[in-house]
Every structure is written in C-alpha cells, then in structure tokens.
C-alpha cells in the first residue's frame, strides 16, 4: 500500500458519523480509558471545534468522570451534548424588531459564504410574516452581484434599491435607509460585497457604510449579522474577531449546513467571543433557512448525515 492509499484508508474512518463513532466507543470500552478519551477528542476536532475549545470540553469530561457525573461510557454523549448546548446558550438575543421602524439589518462576511442568498431567504421570511421589506444592493463590486440580488428580490417579492455597478456602496446604503423611512418600510437589509477580514481598505469601506446608516437612524444598524460558511475551519474565529473590531456584530448566520461539515467552529466562536448564532442555512432554496436551535445543533453534531 502506498502512502496515499494508506492515508486514504485511514481517512475512511473519519467519515463515519459522530454517533456511530461514539457508539463504537461505548461498545469497545467497558470502562472509561484514556484511549477512549483520545478518540472522543478526535471526534470533536474533526467537527472543527478547534484545539482550545476541545481541550476545554475534554477537561469538563475529565472533571465529570472525577466527580462521578460520568460513570460509564454511556454517559459520555449526553454529558458532552449538554456541555456544548450550555456553551451555545451562553448568550442569546431576541430578534431585533424595532418598535420604531425601519429595522436595519447589515449583512457582512468573507467571499462566497452565502450573504446574498441569506438576504433572499430572510427577505422571504420577513415578507411572509407580513413585514414590508426593502433590500439594498450595496455589493457594487462583484460581477453580477446586483443582478443576483434582484432575482432574490423577485423570489421574495420585495423591493430593491440599487445603483450602477462600481458605484459607492455607502451611497446605496444611505439611499436605502432614506427610502425605507419615506416608504414606511419595516425591515431594510443591506447586502455587502464579500471581503476578507484582513483587507484594511475594504474593512474601512464597511465602517463608512455603518456611519452613513447611523447618520440617518442613530440606533441603526440594529442588527449586523456575520455570515459564516459551515465548511470553514479555524479561520472563522479570525473572521469573527476582525469583523467584530470594525462593526458591532450582533450574531452569526451559519450557512451550508446541508453538507457534511459540522460547523463546530461556531462553538469556539461562542465560547471565545460570545457571539450567538441566529440562523442556519440548509440549502439554496428560498425556504432553506432555520432559526438556530442550540440543542438541535448540539445533537446534530452527533448525528448521521
């Protein structure tokens, strides 16, 4: 067997589901041994939970064993699920619907994570719940980004504010907020261009969008959502930190959870930055958006896919 074949055979194991693995562990070990804990650690790491948070969870498990909360391998999964659930619940916000409309929601994130699609889904959701929605095409940079948002606007049946490609994104945002006030809109959602959090000039542009909105409505944006791709690994922590330095993030949308990626990095983000996940994306359709439920998510980490 060549090196690659060997690795490949080895990796087969990683594809097996969390449950399957834990069940195997439970069957394989009569009592809790170090090897069992090592395997459990591997399972967390493979869900992108990351080293520091995995270490923290493993410490909790070891404490749980010591103070007899965990007495057999069977107790491990519920214990861990509960700990993750608690971590995710540490800070939870209600929806930010303003008494004094419009509510302004700014959507930010790195390239290709699903910002525009999420706006389409959210627009549809708010529209269906009887709100008057306006979306703003403040990604004036990427090829056909405006056309893409327009199609989503049609799908959701909402109005859109757009300028020409290449124009100032802050001006689009300003226009949108003004129009929303004039037209008695309930919710304005602003789509921004994907940008890597390390690019100072693009992050500066985001600040400007923010300033312009706040000039029109001092409390706005009422919500600033960071969109994260569930496939992303530890870099998501850097994204959350650096976007958070520039704009006041109020939550996370975790997209593409319909794949096999577990999105475990949001546990780390919750743990380290106390930034709650609010929505999850589970497909490319207009209805493929769900409110985030911590317990379900914790359970899904352990489930087959």
């Amino acid at each position: 067997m060549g090196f690659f074949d060997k690795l490949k055979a080895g990796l087969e194991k990683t594809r097996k589901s969390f449950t399957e693995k834990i069940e195997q562990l439970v069957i394989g070990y009569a009592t809790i041994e170090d090897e069992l804990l090592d395997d459990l650690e591997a399972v967390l790491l493979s869900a992108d939970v990351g080293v520091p948070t995995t270490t923290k969870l493993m410490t909790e498990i070891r404490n749980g064993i010591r103070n007899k909360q965990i007495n057999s391998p069977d107790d491990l999964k519920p214990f861990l699920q509960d700990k993750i659930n608690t971590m995710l619940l540490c800070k939870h916000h209600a929806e930010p619907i303003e008494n004094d409309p419009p509510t302004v929601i700014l959507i930010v994130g790195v390239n290709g994570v699903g910002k525009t699609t999420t706006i389409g889904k959210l627009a549809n959701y708010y529209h269906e719940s009887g709100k008057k929605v306006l979306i703003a095409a403040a990604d004036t940079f990427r090829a056909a980004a405006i056309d893409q948002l327009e199609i989503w606007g049609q799908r959701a049946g909402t109005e859109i504010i757009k300028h020409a490609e290449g124009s100032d994104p802050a001006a689009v945002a300003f226009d949108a907020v003004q129009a929303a006030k004039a037209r008695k809109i309930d919710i304005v959602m602003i789509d921004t261009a994907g940008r890597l959090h390390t690019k100072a000039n693009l992050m500066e542009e985001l600040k400007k969008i923010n300033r312009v909105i706040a000039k029109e409505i001092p409390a706005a944006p009422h919500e600033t959502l960071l969109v994260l791709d569930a496939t992303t690994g530890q870099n998501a922590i850097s994204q959350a930190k650096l976007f958070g330095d520039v704009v006041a993030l109020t939550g996370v949308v975790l997209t593409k959870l319909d794949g096999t990626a577990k999105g475990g990095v949001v546990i780390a983000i919750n743990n380290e930055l106390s930034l709650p996940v609010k929505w999850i994306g589970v497909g490319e359709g207009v209805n493929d958006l769900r409110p985030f439920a911590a317990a379900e998510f914790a359970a899904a980490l352990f489930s087959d896919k």
Partner: protein
Amino acid sequence: MVFESLADKLQQTFKKLRGKGKLSESDVAEALKEVRMALLEADVNFKVVKDLVAKIKERAIGQEVLESLTPAQHVVKIVNEELTNLMGGTQSRIAIASRPPTVIMLVGLQGAGKTTTAGKLANLLKRQGKRPLMVAADVYRPAAIKQLEVLGEQLEIPIFTMGQDNPVNIAKKAVDQALMMARDIVIIDTAGRLHINEELMNELKSIKQTVKPHEILLVVDAMTGQDAVNVAESFNNDLGIDGIILTKLDGDARGGAALSIKAVTGQPIKFAGMGEKLDALEQFHPDRMASRILGMGDVLSLIEKA
C-alpha cells in the same frame, strides 16, 4: 491572528535542552505535541496530522543535531521537509492537448470561487497566447451566467451560453462551437454543488463522459476546515480530478486544507487564488505553503541557509 509561531514554541520547549547531541525520545515527544497543535490549528485534517506526526517522530528520534542548528530548528526542519514532501515537491501546470481544444472543467462546492477562477484562468492562458472560450454551464445559481458574461466582457474573451438549458448539452455544444471558432481552450464553469448531492454529481459525470475534459480541476476555498477530506475524496472518486486550485489565499487562513486534500487525492495543487481581481492567480508553491501552514516564513528561510 495572534498565533505564536510554532518555531517560537519549539524554541521554548527546547530551552531546557543544553548542548547539542542526539535528540532523545522525550525531547521529541514534547516538541511533537506543539507540532500537532499547530497543524490542527491550521486546519490540517486530524487523521493526516496523526500520520504525519508519527512519521516525523520516526525521523527525528536519535538524529544527530547539526552543528549549525538548535534542536528546535532541527525539528522544524524535519517537519517542514515532511510537509513539503506530502504537498508534492514541484509545481504543476495545465496539460495542453496535442489536438485542440484543451477542455478544462472547474468543479467544487458552492462559493469556492469557480466562476472567478474560470475568468482568471482564461486570462492567464490568453496572456500565454491561447484563445480561450468560457462556458456558462451553471444554470442554477441566480445570475451565474450574467456573472460569467461580465467577466468575459472585462477580459474580452468570448463566452458560450445557452441560457438555462441542460448543462451536459451546453458543454457538448460549447466544444463544437470552440472547434468552429478555432478557440483552443474551453473552460467550463459548473454550478457549485455538495459532494453528497447525487443528482448533481451525476450531472458532472455526464459532462465528463460527453466532452472528456483534459483537466478536471477541483476548486477549494483555502479556509476550508476538517471536511476538506470528505469533499475532495468524493469529487475525486466520482470524477477522477486532475488537480486542485486553492482560492482565497490572500487572507490569513493557514490553509491546512491543502495538505488534507493532497493527502486524500494525491493530485497536485496547480494554482493559488490570491484575490478577487482577474490577474490574481499564481503558481502554487508547495514549500511556501508548508511554511504558511506552520506559520513561520522567515524562520524557514534562515534554516534553509544553515
């Protein structure tokens, strides 16, 4: 990111170790703990990490430490060599077919950067004197065709579209068209899809059977985490990919996915996407990627000189 570099950590680990002799098993074990952590934090798949660490251990124990290097530097050197080896020593390029057109198909998950990369690749090849044709075979994503059209206009490269027709049909007609227009490169932009979506994976298989691409390139986001192995393995099993293009390397992602993907597919990483602009496509350098994953550019160049 406020990463303490692996080199610094190893330096500290070896502080106690005075003089230069053979590396003992316990010295190496301490150091390898740090190596393991650094690799995991860089998103290298944990199973790949395990195998790699075992290999490094085997090599490091009992080795004479070179006069010119501290024990820490010595371990870093071994780690770096193993990483570079695993990533595939040399750079690769696109195989140009002896009888044109060369057909290149870009595949990958949603939002990985396929369409942008199609534009970049077309641009690169045009500059090398080729005559590319870009094909809009993503009939699902809103405004995907328009996106490719805009890129085509910017680059003054023709695109082939049949609207929301069947992608297999589009690909076939596009190759016919390329022959008629004497275009020697055909770049097919496909829709993003999940590796577990059987129907859409079958669509790619049909395109492959119909147009027999010379290069099927998997486009992967450098920020991808542990799941990179599942994605790469599925695409490779279903299609037999010929190479990888790693995108969004212009950020601060360590890019451990590169190593994971290389490990499961054995296919070379051919290009690196370094920005959103259409000239931001570079040759991939395995050695640079190794030091990036480890988070220590300068230290390595010092060691290289030693």
